[in-house]
C-alpha cells in the first residue's frame, strides 16, 4: 500500500497513511474501496442522481408489468391497462404455466446445457488459449489466433442452414450437440479474452515447475489454471448468459420437443397463450427468474467480471 502511495496524489498518500495507523479496520478490500470513496472529493451531484433515478425506472417498468400481469385474473387484466395492482392475487397462473409449458423439463434442459457449456468452455478454451499465448511467436499458433479472430466477423446466418444438416447427420440435434456448439463457437471470443491475460503471467512461474519435472499439461493445470480465476469468471459469466438465453441456436438445432429450452418453450407456447396473457406472463417470469436471482445475489461480481472482459 505504501508503494502505491507515491504514484497517486498527495491526498491519497495521506489517506493511505491514515489507513495504516488505523489497523483495526475491516479487510483490506473494504478499506481500499472506502479510500477510493473518500478520495472522490467531488460534491454529490444531485442533478445526476435524479436523472439516473428517473431513467432507471425504464428498466424496472417492464419487470413490474411482468409481475403484476402474472398475478391477475384475465377479467382483471381486461378491465385495465395492465399496470394496475391486481385486485385479487391469482397465484394459480404459475401452476398452470408450470404444467402447460412443461416447465420442469424445460428448465432441466436449459440448466444442463448451460452448466455443460460453461464447464466445458472453461476447461477447454483456457487450454487452447494457454498454448496460443505461450507460442504466439510461432507461425502456426499465430495463424490459429488470427483464424479464430477472423471468425468473429462471420455472421451466424451463413452457418445456420448447413450446420443444421451437419448436426442432424451426426445425431447432435440434442442437448449434447448444443453444449459442443457453444463451447466451439465461444472459442473465438474467449481465446481473445484469455490470451491477453495469460501473456501477462510471468513465464518464470512455470519454469520453476518445469525444472521440477512437471509436464506442460501439469504446469497448466497446477500453475496457470488457478491463476486464471478472474478470466474464468468473466468467460463463465458470458457463456452462462449466452447459453441460458440463446434462442436461435436451440430453435434450429434441436429436433426433439422433449429437448426444448426455456426460451424455446416460450416461443412454442406463444401460439396457445395468445389470449391468455396472465398465464403467459407467469411463464415468462419463471423463465427469467433463475438468472435474475443469481444476478441479484452476485451483482457486483457479475458486473466486474464483464468489465474485466471489456478492458482486455
Amino acid at each position, binding site marked *: 500500500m505504501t508503494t502505491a502511495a507515491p504514484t497517486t496524489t498527495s491526498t491519497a498518500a495521506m489517506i493511505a497513511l491514515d489507513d495504516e495507523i488505523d489497523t483495526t479496520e475491516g479487510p483490506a478490500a473494504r478499506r481500499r474501496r472506502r479510500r477510493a470513496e473518500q478520495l472522490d472529493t467531488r460534491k454529490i451531484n444531485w442533478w*445526476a442522481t435524479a436523472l439516473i433515478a428517473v431513467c432507471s425506472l425504464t428498466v424496472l417498468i417492464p419487470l413490474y*408489468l411482468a409481475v403484476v400481469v402474472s398475478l391477475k385474473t384475465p377479467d382483471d387484466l381486461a378491465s385495465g391497462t395492465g399496470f394496475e395492482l391486481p385486485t385479487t392475487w391469482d397465484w394459480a397462473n404459475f401452476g398452470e404455466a408450470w404444467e402447460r409449458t412443461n416447465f420442469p423439463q424445460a428448465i432441466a434442459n436449459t440448466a444442463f446445457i448451460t452448466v455443460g457449456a460453461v464447464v466445458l468452455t472453461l476447461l477447454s478454451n483456457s487450454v487452447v488459449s494457454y498454448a496460443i499465448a505461450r507460442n504466439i511467436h510461432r507461425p*502456426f499458433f499465430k495463424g490459429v489466433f488470427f483464424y479464430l479472430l477472423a471468425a468473429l466477423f462471420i455472421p451466424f446466418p451463413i452457418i445456420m442452414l448447413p450446420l443444421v444438416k451437419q448436426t442432424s447427420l451426426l445425431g447432435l440435434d440434442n442437448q449434447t450437440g448444443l453444449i459442443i456448439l457453444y463451447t466451439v463457437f465461444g472459442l473465438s471470443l474467449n481465446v481473445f479474452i484469455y490470451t491477453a491475460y495469460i501473456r501477462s503471467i510471468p513465464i518464470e512461474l512455470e519454469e520453476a515447475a518445469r525444472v521440477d519435472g512437471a509436464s506442460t499439461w501439469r504446469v497448466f493445470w497446477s500453475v496457470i489454471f488457478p491463476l486464471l480465476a478472474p478470466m474464468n469468471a468473466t468467460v463463465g459469466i458470458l457463456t452462462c448468459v449466452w447459453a441460458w438465453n440463446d434462442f436461435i441456436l436451440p430453435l434450429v438445432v434441436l429436433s426433439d420437443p422433449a429437448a426444448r429450452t426455456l426460451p424455446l418453450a416460450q416461443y412454442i407456447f406463444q401460439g396457445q397463450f395468445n389470449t391468455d396473457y396472465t398465464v403467459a406472463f407467469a411463464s415468462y417470469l419463471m423463465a427469467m427468474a433463475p438468472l435474475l436471482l443469481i444476478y441479484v445475489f452476485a451483482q457486483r461480481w457479475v458486473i466486474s467480471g464483464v468489465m474485466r472482459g471489456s478492458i482486455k
Partner: protein
Amino acid sequence: MATTTLPDVAGRASRKGVDDGAGKRRSALGRALPAYYWMVVPAIVLFAFFHTLPVLVGVFFSFTNYAGYGAWDFIGISNYVNLFQDDRALRAYGFSFGFAIAATILTNVIALLIALGLNAKIVARNTFRGVYFVPYVLAILVVGYVFQFFFSNSLPKLLPSIPVLADNILSNPDWAWVAIVVLAVWQAAAFSIIIYLAGLQTIPAELYEAASLDGAGALQQFSRITFPLISAFFTINMVLSLKGFLQVFDHVVALTNGGPGTATESITLLIYRGGFQGGEFAYQTANAVIFVIVITVVSLLQFRVLQRREADF
C-alpha cells in the same frame, strides 16, 4: 500437418541444447512443444468442422438449386442475380439497415449518457449500476413478449390521444420498426453502459481537476477530455452494436414476427424462413453469403472511419 513437423522441431531444439549451455531453457520448451500442439489441434479441428466447414458448404450450395432435400444441379450465379431483383430480400436489407443504424446510434448515445451519470458522484451509485445492467441477463425473446403486450395492449389504453400508439404500433407497417428499436435499445444499452463505464474509469481524475482550474466547463471537459479518451471504447461499441443489430432476429420474432406483412422482416428471419420452411436452401445461402460480405465491408468501413476520427484528436 502438425504431426509431420513435430519431430523435426523438437529434434532441432534438443540439438541446440547440446551445442550451447544457454539453450537449456530452449530444450525444455522444445520438449514441451508436442504438448502445445495437442492442446490446440483438436480444438481447431472441431472449430473448423463446426464453423468453417458450414461456411464453405454454404458457399458451395449457393451455386446450386438445392431445396434442402432431394436432387440438385449447378445453376451458376443465378441465385445471386435473382437476389438483386427480389423485392422481399431488398426490403429485408432495407429494414435491417434502417433498424440497425437507428438502434446503434440510440444505444450508444443513451448508454454513454447514462454511463456519464453513473460515473458522476451520485447517491447509491452501485445500486443504480446494478439496476441498469439487469436487461443483460434477460432473454431478448422473453422480454420481447412482455414488450409486445405493452405495445399492443397497454400503450393504446395509456395514450389513446397519440394516433400511432392508439391502435397498436406493432400492426402499423410504417411504424412497427420503431417498437423493435425500443426493445433493442432497452436490452443492448445495459452492456454498452458497462463498457463505457469501464472506459470512463480509466480516465484519471487529475485531468478534470486541471481542466476546471483552467476554466473548462462541463461540455468542454466532455468534448476535450472524456470523449477523446474513451474513443477506443466508442469505436468498438459502435462496430459491435451495428454488426449485432444487422443480424436482428429474437426481437423481431417476439414483437412482430416479421409483420405486418413482411414490413419488419429482417435478413436473418428471411434466411431462416426461406431456408427451413420455404424450400429455398440454396437461394437463402446465397443471400447469407452476400450478407457476410455486406457485414464485413460495413464493419471494416466503420472501423476506418471511426479510427481516423480517433486519430484527429
